[in-house]
């Protein structure tokens, strides 16, 4: 076995460092490609590996190449002739990949091809976070939600009987009995048997008599000893100990509420989706398990799946409070606050039936905000409206109403957006570390 070396257990990933260098090198192209790829994929897919196609700009590796198509002449040899005779002419293909002979020529030219490769989710997220400067805010803004749980904390000598640790107790008892030489039951029985045999055999002999007396004394001593060396002594008893420890709830539910009435077009939904995506990503980094609940509403609210949420359209009026009711109902049914951290994000174009806004405010103040870790409201406007409502204070009824809620709750945020570029800053502002007011 002198010639073979098993390298399989050697560390793999020798190329990882080079790979990271490459990613850093092509950062600009990759960032662009990642953003594009994220835009086209479902909300929860952000956590998956994805194929990225970038242009080779920035990572080009040029060489001096000959370009026989630009001038001069050359010969080349191909296999597999079928019908050609010397002097025949073969039309050249128009472009490089139009035929085999052309391909041969194209080999001389450095390809400007796109470069495709797979990025792991970690790498994708790094790019994503780089844009958002999220790492800071992940650490600072979310409040810990302590759940308490009993955890084992070793063994104690005091406790309640139902916590007795039998194995430990009996091990102690056994050790003590061995150390103090407690006679076992079978030993005593042996002595009794011997005594009986002697008594039946020849009780008259002097020797036998003395032996009988000796045995009787021995038996008495053994039985006395059994009495004062107890089988299980209070000293032996051990109890399992438990201590209460806080654990952060490891699951979160994210309610996505959206107005899907006719006034919400493709553009509005796309903006909302990006926002939900960010929030989902944000929560994923924080919690072990994140559920998403999609609630859409017109004058009536329904829970739907993602496809329908983003892509189907419904006609009807707009009553926002129905969505809030639906959310509360789902929360009561499936997501107890003890086990779940609750987040909500609401997207709307700001219209609701008159009078409904007040009801929303009531529900938020009384029922919803006490349950939620964070509630984000984004109002999607077009750019013209954005100019009209330049001031934070002016706005449609729902906006003004929500502003009053925001005053009362620190973890309630409202923001208006009109184009994709607005989303990241808004998101950042939502989850910004609050200015520490001493």
């Amino acid at each position, binding site marked *: *076995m002198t*010639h*073979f*070396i*098993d*390298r*399989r257990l*050697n560390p*793999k*990933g*020798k*190329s990882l*460092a*080079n*790979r990271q*260098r*490459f*990613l*850093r*090198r*092509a950062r600009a192209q990759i960032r662009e490609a990642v953003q594009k790829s994220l835009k086209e994929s479902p909300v929860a897919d952000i956590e998956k590996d994805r194929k990225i196609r970038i242009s080779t700009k920035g*990572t*080009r*590796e*040029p*060489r*001096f*190449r*000959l*370009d*026989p198509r*630009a*001038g*001069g*002449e050359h*010969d*080349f*040899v*191909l*296999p*597999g*002739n079928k019908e*050609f*005779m*010397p*002097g*025949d*002419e*073969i039309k*050249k293909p128009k472009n490089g990949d139009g035929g*085999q*002979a052309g391909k041969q*020529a194209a*080999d*001389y*030219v*450095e390809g400007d091809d796109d*470069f495709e*490769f*797979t990025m792991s989710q970690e790498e994708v997220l790094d790019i994503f976070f780089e844009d958002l400067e999220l790492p800071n805010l992940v650490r600072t803004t979310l409040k810990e939600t302590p759940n308490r749980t009993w955890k084992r904390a070793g063994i104690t000598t005091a406790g309640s009987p139902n916590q007795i640790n039998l194995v430990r107790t009996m091990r102690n008892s056994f050790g003590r009995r061995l150390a103090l030489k407690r006679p076992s039951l079978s030993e005593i029985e042996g002595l009794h048997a011997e005594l009986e045999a002697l008594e039946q055999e020849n009780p008259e002999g002097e020797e036998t008599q003395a032996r009988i007396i000796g045995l009787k004394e021995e038996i008495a001593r053994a039985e006395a000893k059994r009495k004062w060396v107890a089988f299980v002594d209070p000293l032996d008893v051990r109890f399992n100990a438990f201590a209460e420890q806080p654990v952060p709830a490891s699951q979160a539910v994210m309610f996505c509420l959206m107005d899907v009435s006719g006034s919400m077009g493709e553009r509005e939904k796309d903006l909302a989706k990006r926002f939900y995506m960010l929030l989902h990503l944000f929560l994923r980094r924080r919690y072990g398990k994140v559920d998403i609940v999609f609630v859409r509403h017109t004058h009536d609210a329904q829970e739907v799946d993602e496809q329908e949420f983003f892509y189907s359209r419904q006609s009807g009026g707009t009553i926002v409070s129905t969505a809030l009711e639906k959310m509360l109902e789902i929360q009561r049914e499936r997501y107890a606050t003890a086990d779940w951290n609750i987040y909500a994000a609401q997207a709307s174009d700001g219209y609701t039936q008159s009078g409904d806004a007040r009801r929303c405010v009531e529900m938020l103040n009384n029922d919803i905000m006490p349950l939620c870790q964070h509630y984000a409201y984004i109002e999607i406007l077009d750019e013209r409206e954005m100019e009209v409502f330049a001031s934070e204070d002016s706005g449609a009824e729902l906006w003004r109403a929500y502003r009053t809620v925001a005053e009362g709750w620190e973890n309630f945020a409202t923001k208006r957006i009109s184009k994709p570029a607005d989303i990241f800053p808004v998101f950042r502002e939502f989850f910004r570390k609050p200015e520490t007011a001493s």
Partner: protein
Amino acid sequence: MKPVAPLFREAEWDFETLDRAYKAIEEIALNELKLDVYPNQIEVISSEQMLDAYSSLAMPLMYSHWSFGKLFAREETLYRAGYSALAYEIVINSSPSISYLLEENTMPMQALVIAHAAFGHNHFFKNNYLFRQWTNAAGILDYLAFAKSYIAACEDRHGREDVEAILDSAHALMDQGVFRYSRPPRASRERVLEKHRKRREYEAEAYSELWRTLPAGITPPSAPLIPEPEDESDEMRLPEENILYFLEKHSPVLKDWQRETLRIVRTLAQYFYPQKQTKVMNEGCATFVHHAIMNQLYDKGLITEGALLEFLHSHTSVVFQPEFDDKRYNGLNPYALGYGMMADIKRICEDPADEDRDWFPSFAGSGDYMAVLKNAWANYRDESFIEQFLSPKLIRDFRLFALHDKAGESAYKVAAIHNENGYRPVRTMLARQYDVGLAEPNIQVAEANLKSDRRLLLQHRMHRGVPLNEKTKSLMLAHVERLWGYDVDLDELEAGE
């Protein structure tokens, strides 16, 4: 002959079976084929490690650079998507010769790979004149270790960006970083400095206050003289074909570590240069050897019929040559051409036709094909091998035909085909196609004006009027300018100008 038990029956392998197979193969290779090989070191690796190895130019160690990461990303994606299978083996031209076996291979495949890499390639590396002259098999791994730590140290000292920039430019010029003709090696500037440093250290250690008290007229003993390196003259010898060498020696702007970095890259380029010139022969030799060994194993009863069939299946797909209009066609397959030619030499030695006697009077019918092959393996490269040994029969078998391509014309012209008049032109044209000197542009440093504006003039001597690709030309000039530090011009000259 008494029946022998096969070496293995199962597809599964273990180290004991590998060892037995290795011994049987070694017996055939050394005693029957009389191959001459470096000692073998065979390493079993996983598929991920194989991908790793791919992306560092198939070397076990390599300095870090993003381009290797790019290669890795591409290979990994292709592999994961199932577009490309991994190589069964990688073999490194070093002494001892290191072959990597993929753990997923079946036992018959492992035997094939051992025969192919550990004996076929190994024999070729050890005996071919190009490798003997240009590569130092015993030293390459140490050199790579030096390169890796040197580049890493440079990154620590000068910053990663600066080192990467130099490497980018040096990599771009790798094809222009080889000597095509021999030249005695010289001590590099960095190593000269190292010697000076050592000398100063010695003097510092040996210094003693005592010597200052000596009466006048007595000189203290001096440090032993380290011989000065041979004259590092700054005289340029122009024209210079090795652009990297020229820049390393004469660039007015490079610092010492940058010169040493260029030196590392051009040393690697020089190390790989023989492999570029012998693709067909190298693969042909390895394929011919594994074919001979596997059949011999079967004849001796050492492998089962099943194993032989598995081997043949894999062998046939390796030497498969799609025709030019097949969508699988991707150039001539070096395995197919190399193996085809070598099997053909065997045929000519053992069972020549009249035609072969006319074409190859020196060995047709000689019977000792191994002598002819060994001579070819030792003393030829692809271009000369094809020019010398491609037979009319093989041209017919491959149905080779030559096209003449003139830029500006709308059609290729069929210049020659596999007929009586065509054999010689086809053979010559195919040989030219494998001449690295013609496939790569001939660019030389023509002038460097150090006295005035420090302009560097490169000349591309065109072969049959084929110019450089404009797009990469401008990118490349930027790289040369980075290394030279001043303006660089590139003239393209017609031959004879």
